[in-house]
């Protein structure tokens, strides 16, 4: 308090300026960030045992960049995420348009069914996909890349596009119907109205939805775990097998790369959407 003479005492509702709350915030931040930051720091540590700081090195990044199986897995993950994002955005936008715009019998049922992939536990969806691709639609093995990733891509789209639909639909709630009527009044037909007025309004949510779908796909382990085969390993599945084995600086380095990618994606989302993109705008995400 001595040094703070210049500043007024905190107002009654300025909880952030009270020390117990500040201490609490610091504690939670340490809880959330300390593990990640140490992980990143030790990826530069010149010690195989990964415990005591021995000096700075980029060796493990070099190893990562020469680890063919890790690189393949990373490439697979990015490819899957990219295709999944593209398809999910299209399907999600269609779903949002359908549920926002039209009145039809069975709408409530469809609305509920579209929420299912969001709420069904990942493990259940994982085994469903395993059974589906084992018994109903066996994905042919030995297909050329990236067709061999088909089963994983399909599974990822199944859980991603309802999330995109939620984001886009939330955005459409702020649409001024008079804009659509104005377009029609000026002579535009149904398709032209969608192209010229509705999709431009959707655009920010399409970007936000795309980022969400990309992250969900890149992040997914459980469902992929059930649909991937020996030659279709994704980054999380690969890291999982490495982690099970032991904690190595190499995994630290690979993880650091992915964290950096995440931060870049988050920054992009912020640029396009403001904080809403990272914070709100999407429904409960039970994936964990």
């Amino acid at each position, binding site marked *: 308090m001595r040094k703070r003479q210049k500043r007024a005492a905190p107002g009654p509702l300025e909880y952030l300026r009270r020390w117990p709350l500040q201490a609490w915030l610091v504690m939670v931040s340490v809880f959330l960030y300390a593990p990640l930051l140490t992980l990143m720091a030790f990826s530069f540590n010149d010690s195989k045992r990964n415990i005591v700081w021995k000096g700075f090195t980029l060796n493990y990044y070099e190893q990562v960049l020469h680890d063919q199986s890790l690189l393949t897995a990373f490439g697979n993950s990015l490819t899957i995420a990219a295709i999944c994002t593209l398809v999910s955005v299209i399907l999600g936008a269609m779903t949002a348009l359908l549920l926002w715009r039209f009145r039809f019998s069975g709408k409530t049922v469809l609305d509920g069914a579209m929420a299912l992939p969001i709420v069904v536990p990942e493990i259940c969806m994982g085994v469903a996909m395993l059974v589906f691709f084992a018994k109903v639609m066996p994905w042919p093995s030995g297909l050329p890349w990236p067709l061999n990733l088909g089963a994983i891509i399909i599974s990822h789209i199944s859980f991603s596009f309802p999330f995109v639909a939620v984001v886009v639909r939330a955005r459409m709630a702020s649409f001024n119907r008079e*804009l659509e009527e104005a377009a029609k009044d000026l*002579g535009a037909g149904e398709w032209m109205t969608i192209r010229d*007025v509705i999709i431009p309004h959707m655009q920010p949510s399409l970007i936000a939805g795309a980022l969400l779908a990309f992250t969900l796909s890149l992040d997914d382990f459980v469902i992929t775990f059930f649909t991937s085969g020996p030659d279709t390993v994704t980054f999380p599945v690969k890291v999982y097998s490495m982690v099970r084995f032991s904690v190595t600086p190499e995994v630290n380095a690979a993880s650091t790369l992915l964290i950096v990618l995440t931060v870049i994606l988050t920054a992009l989302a912020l640029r396009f959407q403001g904080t809403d993109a990272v914070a709100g705008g999407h429904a409960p995400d039970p994936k964990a």
Partner: protein
Amino acid sequence: MSAPQTAAKAPAKTIISFENITKRYGKVVAVDNVSLTIEEGEFFSLLGPSGCGKTTLLRMLAGFETPTEGRILIDGQDVSEIPPNKRPVNMVFQSYAVFPHMTVAQNVAYGLKVDGIGAKECAERVEEALALVKLEGYGPRKPDQLSGGQRQRVALARALVKRPRVLLLDEPLSALDAKLREQMRSELTQLQDKVGITFIMVTHDQDEALAMACRCAVMNRGLLQQVATPSDLYEFPNSRFVADFIGQVNLFEGQLVVDEPDHAVIDSAEVGVPIYLDHGVTGATGSTVWAAIRPEKIEIYKRIDGAEMIKMEDAPQGHNVVAGTITHLAYLGSETVFDVTLMTGHSVKVVRSNLTRWDQEDFSWDEPVWLSWHACSPAMLTA
């Protein structure tokens, strides 16, 4: 009982007709059997409180709603089957609905592009339309760089550039601030005069309707109440609703006791003296009627104890002059509004213009007064 003043123009041609239009939303009747014709070149206003069905009527004309019953003709052609994008009418929306992702020029050009009009003609017409609404040079701007009034002009230009048969305006001034609203009133009427297109405007603001329209239709609860020129609506309302909705009015309930071709008398317990009308009325003797008198048509005089009741040449003795006491007065600058309580306990509103600078000090609270009105002033209403 009509006094045509403004309607006497060239023989008008009907451009729009609503024929027995009814619109129901489930059990709610939004528009109830409305028949109405609108003439070419007219500035027509649909007036009524919110929820009266006026906007629904306008939207049916634009094609955004379909009538449950009845049909709408534009230039004699039934438009029931024509979608909004094919109708020869254009609309200025309440929120203006200026496309936020397009520039002003792109907004105005949109309707022309849809019609497949070539780039050169398109550009010319856009320029012309922007000039018409005094927005020259604003073409490259984005809507978020414009003020509310400017956005409205864009919406106007965008609709007018298509040279519609009829321009529809949905509460066009409601989103503007008071000063700008006043200015846009005269601009809109001038614009209408200039382009010669039929304007149909929906508004809940009676001042707006009276100031701008050639003719108004007053609606209430889905029903068409009266269609008339602004002055006829004010001076010759056909119902208590219209009388009360347009301006202020004193309504006295009573019985029609004399019904002669050249005069009539209403006996009202609320006034205490018979109300004499110097014109014939249509109504059954003995039925309940209402006398409607505008506050500014009532004169107010001081009542000094012992002094004789004031006389008016066209008010027969004992009629249309009534004693009361001022219970409230509000000095509004140009005029003073009095609440006068009659001997019967009924309260009457009186408006008196302050014609000289010291005038208003003559009256004070609780002062006894005489009220009087000309025999031609009250309107008799049966509904």
